[in-house]
């Protein structure tokens, strides 16, 4: 059964159906979209259950010639890393649909409701596609094409500065993508294998200099996408201006493509170059961690703040990827998922707040805790997950990253650890300003979470807590894939000897 193709086709068909719903009947469109996304989720779960961690690396593989002239295939397949990320997308989309129930009715909306949800479903298809692609060209196609629905979602349904943010988002990503295109072409031409299939291209480039150039092309695109410091400036704008649902997908899934790309393509295709560039990347990551955290502290806009926290978190993920140890790699992968849930929850809750108050600025709130305890409660849980409180899902992954990094790069790991402290500051301070303190006048009018909103946050909170205590299912899936990756990179398996030697000195 062509699981992955079905997974992509269902949302696309759904999007078409949504787009064809009669004008003015927004409710039908919403229900349809929700239905489709739930179906996708169900299918994803059905597929994930069949995934055997001990089986071959890529499963559910489908390969067809697409454009033989360019050696391009329609090649999809998932390993553990891709699987969990697809699952992440599949989980987030129905939640986002539900959360965005009224987003498209917002005063800025220039479009019909149905367009928003159709775009959302198209985006879902592309997100699944980008993770599922085993053909580099196909990956690139999804990588770029994904921008368009997101661009329209931000530009049409976003906040006051939406068009600026949308253009900035698009151009940054496009520019990165185009440089990647050069590298993709270079890879194809230099490898001379007349194919873009990822498995066949592993180890195709041997020349170190070539590797470095191509790596640079790929890495730049991913760094912009991820976003890694200093390529991050588009993210706060885009995330702050996007409607909450879109922001969740943007930060929760889209940006993961960057780190996913680093792990999957940069490392495996250009192992030597990766090692060569590792110090640089680690420096960037560490700077990103600290910088993101510090800047986040200074933010007055909730969504911007959350966006900056993400920059900090992406630093961790990149650090984990490039530490090239099993723990760090698995941690980074897990972090991608967990970050998706926790930041998603934060964005959604921020969205609820904004929907009530009509303002993204922290100073406009206060005393939310007293008026709407449920809202404040989930806000706290999501926030604590964001600062990686033990017992919540992020902790596991962050810890694994730091541990894994420490094994190999001690100093960066230690510096990064300060990021955890800074995280406590920005999250708690924000929570305090919003939920604590005297109740602001407009906040008194707030209603607590309604049923829809509860349905939105409940699964996320459940996942955050659940994965915090029992991440094993995910790690089981992830670990073999990360091992595979590191084998391709041919890093010498970390041996305690080095650590001892390091410790001994």
């Amino acid at each position, binding site marked *: 059964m062509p699981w992955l193709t079905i997974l992509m086709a269902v949302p696309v068909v759904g999007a078409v159906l949504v787009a064809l719903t009669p004008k003015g009947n927004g409710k039908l469109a919403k229900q349809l979209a929700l239905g489709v996304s739930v179906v996708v989720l169900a299918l994803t779960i059905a597929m994930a259950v069949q995934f055997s961690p001990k089986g071959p690396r890529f499963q559910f593989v489908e390969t067809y010639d697409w454009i033989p002239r*360019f050696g391009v295939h329609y090649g999809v397949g998932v390993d553990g890393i891709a699987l969990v990320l697809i699952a992440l997308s599949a989980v987030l989309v129905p939640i986002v649909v539900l959360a965005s129930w009224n987003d498209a009715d917002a005063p800025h909306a220039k479009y019909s409701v149905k367009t928003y949800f159709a775009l959302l479903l198209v985006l879902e298809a592309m997100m699944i596609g980008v993770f599922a692609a085993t053909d580099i060209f196909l990956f690139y196609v999804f990588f*770029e094409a994904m921008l368009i629905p997101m661009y329209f979602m931000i*530009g049409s349904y976003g906040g006051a500065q939406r068009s600026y943010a949308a253009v900035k988002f698009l151009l940054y990503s*496009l*520019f990165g993508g*185009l*440089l990647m*295109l*050069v590298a993709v072409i270079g890879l194809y031409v230099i490898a001379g294998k007349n194919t873009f299939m990822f498995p066949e291209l592993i180890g195709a480039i041997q020349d170190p200099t070539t590797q470095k150039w191509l790596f640079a092309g790929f890495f730049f695109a991913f760094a912009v996408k991820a976003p890694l410091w200093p390529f991050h400036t588009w993210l706060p704008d885009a995330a702050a201006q996007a409607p909450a649902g879109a922001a969740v997908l943007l930060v929760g899934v889209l940006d993961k493509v960057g780190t996913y790309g680093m792990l999957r393509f940069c490392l495996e295709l250009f192992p030597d170059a990766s090692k060569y560039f590792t110090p640089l990347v680690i420096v960037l990551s560490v700077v990103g961690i600290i910088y993101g955290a510090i800047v986040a502290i200074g933010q007055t806009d909730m969504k911007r703040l959350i966006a900056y926290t993400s920059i900090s978190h992406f630093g961790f993920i990149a650090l984990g990827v490039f530490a090239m140890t099993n723990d760090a790699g698995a941690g980074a992968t897990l972090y991608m998922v967990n970050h998706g849930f926790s930041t998603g929850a934060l964005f959604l809750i921020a969205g609820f707040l904004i929907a009530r108050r009509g303002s993204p600025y922290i100073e406009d709130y206060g005393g939310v805790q007293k008026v709407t305890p449920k809202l404040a409660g989930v806000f706290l849980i999501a926030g604590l997950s964001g600062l990686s409180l033990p017992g919540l899902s992020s902790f596991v992954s962050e810890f694994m990253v730091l541990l894994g990094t420490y094994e190999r790069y001690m100093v960066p790991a230690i510096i990064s650890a300060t990021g955890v402290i800074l995280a406590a500051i920005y999250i708690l301070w924000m929570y305090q300003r919003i939920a604590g303190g005297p109740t602001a006048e407009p906040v008194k009018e707030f209603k607590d979470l309604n049923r829809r909103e509860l349905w939105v946050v409940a699964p996320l909170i459940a996942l955050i807590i659940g994965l915090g205590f029992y991440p094993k299912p995910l790690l089981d899936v992830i670990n073999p894939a990360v091992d595979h990756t590191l084998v391709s990179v041919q890093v010498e398996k970390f041996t305690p000897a080095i650590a001892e030697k390091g410790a001994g000195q």
Partner: protein
Amino acid sequence: MNGTIQAPTIEYGLLAPMLVIFGAAIIGVLVEAFAPRYLRKSIQVPVTLLSMAGAFVLVIFQVISGLPSSAAAMGAVAVDGPSLFFWGVILVLAFVSTLLVLDDDNFVASAAAVPGSAAEEEAEITGGAHTEIYPLILFAVGGMLLFASANDLLVMFVGLEVMSLPLYLLCGLARRRRLLSQEASMKYFLLGAFSSAFFLYGMAFVYGFAGSVDLAKISQALGTVGGMDTMLLIGLALLGVGLMFKIGAAPFQAWKPDVYQGAPTPITALMASGTLVAAFGAVLRVFWVALGNLDWDWRPVMWGVAILTMVVGAILAITQTDIKRMLAYSSIAHAGFLLIGVIATSTQPEGNSSTLSAIMFYLLVYGISTVGAFAVVTMVRDAGGEASHLSRWAGLGKRSPMLAGVFAFFLLAFAGIPLTSGFFGKYAVFVAAVANGATPLVIVGVITSAIAAFFYVRVIVLMFFSEPAADGPTIAVPSAATAAVITLAAAVTVVLGVFPQPVLDLADKAASALFIR
């Protein structure tokens, strides 16, 4: 006089597509001469469209029946794979452009009437129309066919002129803003004639060097004639100037925005698509067939030209406030991308043929999208004609989401976003260039693509994310023909963006044997 002349032979069968077009043009002139006024349009339109379709069928027929191994008409016209592909593309593009032309509203009622005069008003009221545009278009298209397939410089020059002269006139026939249109016509004419003179002088020098204007003989002479390198280089440079002008490469691009803006939009569509295709056909023939062995001499200059063209096209486009001017600059930038392909020659014939096929594919997809984009432009109207100022396009997405969506799609195709045909066009050329060692050019191309994306995106922002103006333009109800053009262009852009393989195969097949000499 002294000696006898062997009566030449002409392979009418091979030249049939061209002959059909020219024949139809002549019939068109006769219709103008003899048919009563009220009948003219209803005769001209079928004649024009059928002749193009017929010529296209003949091209297909020739493709099926196999290619000749030597040039037709005593070596004057090379009917080879690339020629047939270019012919097919030009005919398709001309056909769809002609569908746009059917909308009389774009053309002046009486060209001879002074703008603003009573005569003009009267002509408009009485519904006067110049049905001469159809034969003129046919002549121009015939010229394009000849230009793209000429195997000697003289025929190329004749083709160039046959193509350009009707276009000069057609440019001046816009119904509204006639002063602008007439100015465009004059500028195009003066600069076009100027560049033809350069082409011609270059041809003279090359002839002086090689003793022949036959491309193959020039190519031979490169190896055998010595001691006249200066003359050859001067000739090469001048020829290049003439050709670069026609494709609108910097620094000879100045005419393009003016002309594109002033000309009636359907004609702009024809120029932006058909002329570009034909001109690149000629450029390839001159630089690959005739001067292919001289690539060490022309390549560095061409690098500069390509880079300059891309940069100028992309950067100046940003500052434009008129949609047609913007598309003109975009066309300049695309000419630059295509030049990358021209430069990417290889020492291996296989390398060359893959580059050639990439260029041909690019031309096809760009041409179709361009026609579609200009078709959209014709539909956005103000009281004074087309609302081509960008500010008037604000909020178009709100008024007419379909139209704005389609236009945005074309713009994305120009920008080279995946899943549009434009992406594969660019991709194909870039691959060929990287494979043939022009990676730095590709990087410049990519960077300028990103810059270019900025102004495309800007238009999309304007259409979708800006508040519509209170007295915004109206969206004309498209005529069936215009709607068909837009639908077709959009469909091709999508289909070739997803399944380019069949067309790529076709281009490969056409390019496999390269040019016959």
